[in-house]
């Protein structure tokens, strides 16, 4: 809960005074060129690791996503290891023997039809995720919960963190990223900017966070998504497909990152 959120709450309050309202409307959308989507992850946990290749669909479509099952997919690292992934169908591919090691740079290569896509990502050194601190504030008569992931940023600058949030085991679709640009090498005290307009934290709820140490390009991808989805009086930034680390115009992301989970009950 940072400024955006507080401003948001007040603004919503003001809107209420000014008789503001929300409604679902029908829009005419531009036609959507279906693009190839590549999702690949290598983590510091034991393998196998998975790559998924799908295609995007129109915004109004509710059907399933087309998949590509006949691609040749390899992941190699800078220590001389290379792994050609096995296809599992439904667009999924699985590594056979690769291990994720902190500090190594991984290269993904996808050959789909006559197109080749490559991506690179470096797995940062793991930063220990100690716990989750919950803070409560009374704002305009309602209890607002804030969650602070407790970890100590290393002295070396350039660390990026991503947090994946589950509320009672259901994944919340929000991009939560932090970096050490303004507070390097110290214990984190920054709250995650969770937008809780569409759900409520209630006492007893189980909140789970997965902390990922991610590289610079992966962080840029998620930060761009987070900035686009900012809402409130200023609005978000003009939306765009976030810059990613895959060549040849594929959407999606290849990320080598560390993972660590912590849970906490809402008091």
């Amino acid at each position, binding site marked *: 809960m*940072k400024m955006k959120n*507080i401003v948001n709450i007040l603004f919503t*309050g*003001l809107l209420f005074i*000014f*008789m*503001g*309202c*929300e*409604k*679902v*409307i029908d*829009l005419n*959308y*531009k036609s*959507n*060129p279906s*693009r190839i*989507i590549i*999702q690949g*992850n290598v983590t510091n946990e034991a393998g196998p690791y998975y790559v998924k290749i799908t*295609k*995007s669909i*129109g*915004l109004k479509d*509710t059907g399933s*996503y087309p998949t590509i099952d006949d691609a040749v997919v390899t992941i190699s690292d800078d220590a001389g290891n290379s792994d050609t992934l096995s296809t599992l169908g439904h667009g999924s591919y699985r590594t056979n023997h690769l291990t994720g090691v902190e500090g190594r740079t991984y290269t993904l290569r996808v050959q789909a039809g006559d197109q080749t896509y490559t991506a690179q990502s470096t797995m940062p050194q793991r930063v220990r995720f100690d716990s989750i601190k919950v*803070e409560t*504030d*009374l704002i*305009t*008569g309602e209890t607002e919960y804030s969650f*602070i992931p407790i970890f100590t940023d290393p002295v070396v600058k350039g660390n990026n963190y991503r947090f994946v949030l589950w509320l009672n085991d259901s*994944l919340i*679709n929000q991009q939560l990223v932090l*970096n050490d*640009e*303004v*507070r*390097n090498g*110290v214990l984190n*005290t*920054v709250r995650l900017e969770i937008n809780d307009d*569409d759900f409520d934290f209630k006492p007893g709820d189980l909140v789970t966070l997965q902390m990922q140490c991610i590289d610079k390009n992966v962080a840029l991808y998620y*930060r*761009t998504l987070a*900035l686009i989805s900012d*809402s409130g*009086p*200023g*609005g*978000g*930034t*003009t*939306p*765009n*497909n*976030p*810059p990613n680390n895959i060549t040849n115009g594929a959407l999606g*992301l290849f990320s080598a990152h560390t993972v660590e989970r912590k849970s906490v009950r809402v008091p």
Partner: protein
Amino acid sequence: MGQSKFTISGTVKQKSTGETLIGVTVVVVEKPNVGVITNEYGFYSISLPKGNYTLRFSYVGYKQETVPVKLDADARVSIHLSDESKLQEVVIRAKKDDDNLTKATMGTEVLNMKEAAKLPVIFGEKDLVKTIQLMPGIKSNGEGSNGFSVRGGATDQNLILLDEAPVYNASHLLGFFSSFNSDAIKDATIIKGNSPAQYGGRLSSVLDVKMKEGNSKDYQVSGGLGLISSRLTVEGPIQKEKSSFMISGRRTYADLFARLSSDMKDVKLYFYDLNAKANWAINSKNKLYFSGYFGKDVFSVSSLFGSDWGNTTATVRWNSILSSKLFSNTSFIYSNYDFNVGFKTDASEINYNSHIKDLNLKQDFTWYANANNTVRIGFNIIHHTITPTKAGGTDIVSVKNSRKGLENAVYVSNSWKVFDKLNIDYGLRFSLYNVLGGSTYNIYKDNHLIDSVILADGKIGKNYYNLEPRISASYQLNNSASIKIGYARNTQNLHLMSNSTGGSPTDAWIGNSYNIKPEVADQYSIGFSKNLYNNAFELNTEAYYKTMSNQIDYRDGADINTVPDIESELLFGKGRAYGLEILLKKKKGRLTGWLGYTLSKTERQISGINNNQWYNAKQDRTHDISIVGVYTVSERWTLSGTFIYNTGNAVTFPTGKYVLNDQVIYQYGARNADRMPATHRLDISATYERPSRRRWQGSWSFGLYNIYGRRNPFAITFKENKDNPQKIDAVQTSLFQWVPSITYNFKF
């Protein structure tokens, strides 16, 4: 030749208050082609051969006066004009019935505050910026917003002056109100790009707002009580006819009501402003003016979050009539804009703060060379101190130094009556910006740091200079029609950096640097004016084409709150805008008002955005219509209404979607290729003026905003449907439906 000429000069004032009158037409009856207009300080000067003449002073809303002059030596003719009866008032003042035909000035509108006050406005809070937004070529940034865009320009490309002092953030309360307390304002002029050479520093427009001087004859108290704010103004003579003062304050109290509910009791949300002015006539030729403005917004939630921002300006001006033909004005101006925001949690505290401070010296001479030439010459030096958004607090390491810059300009211009039907205004402005030392400047190429310059205090780092030619001409085709053409170049050395699609108080000003170069705009325009039915109607049309270079935007993913140097996140490009504006005014009769229409296109091309292709600027709107009517029912009652329609802003909606790590992500196509739904709305108001009892004059205004309750789009967001997450809903937020207002104004 050989015939000696003499000069008649003087000052024109309002009879009841002693306020000087700007733009009064002074015509020599015997030589109807000879005429001038009083300047910003009510001064005029005419040179004529020896002889007997009659001067006619006319100004809409005031009784015309004629004065016989026997000219055999230089003469001083100063005069007071008195208010005319109420029924002939008009909303937008025309200085003379057919002034629009003879003056070379293009793209200029003058607002009469007294009349603008009769138009319906949201919450009944009369607001000159909202009235200006009803003119063609000027677009509001969004419903309720005080930001505006002129001829395709961005919000920061408007030079907003309050008694010559630049106002950096002219809005209050999340942008819903302007910084201008109407009670303290005498006059406002907006110039859409074709500004005379004495103005400079912004690409798109000049909004020149002048405060009242204060009644020099009598004490007067006026004020108003409204739904969300109250105002009080006191003015009067200090020494009768020699010096006077005016002080005016305004404060909102919406939050006082809000705090009655327990939910909002920790919330503070209000603004106030204070305008003060005094003037002192040292003698008949020298006059001093002091004016000041102080405004502040406060927005806080218990001890968790606090934010305040405000403008302070102070101006000292010295008017001097050096000779009957030479008028001088010297101004010292101070301007400061401050923004603070802070957050506090149990464990930490963060504060962000930014400010911009100006010290400004202006010298302007007006030389009434002869009956056909009026020359202006002068210079301007502004010293800027700009502190970018700076973070502070527990365990934050962010060192951002203030940066300094010197903005200099010299100019000369001439208003030339070539012959009877042809008038040409031409001028040249030379601007020079010095990047000053005391800070470190990084140099980037393609967003990568390639060099760093540590510039010592007092050193000049980089100089940017520009020549800005301006010319406009009018040719009168016949008694009722004229054509005009114009060209103007404007440059801009300070830039407002905004990361969001809307404006936000965190948007920060930044000056030229080693990466940021002055923005340059070239505007070409052509116009046609025609007066119909004996000047009862006035039709003004203008077409413009404008190119802009060195435009700035953030690259994707730029996080302005944490990045150490925002200059690493900038992209540069150009812009173009073109359009047609039509304004039909009805100036006489019981029903007055206007119909404005704008057809326009505004595009940008920034390398690194939209695959380097041209795209619609956010403020690009194809059609913009406004209809304004004021109907005088009787001496007591006035009814008014405004209707607006405009194409929605250019925005980017998602076109598709995909799943990444079990989260739905939207796919986007070309930038700003989509449109918000159109906005339209009708507002009405009624004003009742009570018959005055002794000195007490009171009036009631009743208004209804958005009378047919149109849900205009403020924002559209995309969300997964709660019942079927596969379905994406477009959710539109609307702000104001049926907002009633009531205001009581008084004067004694």
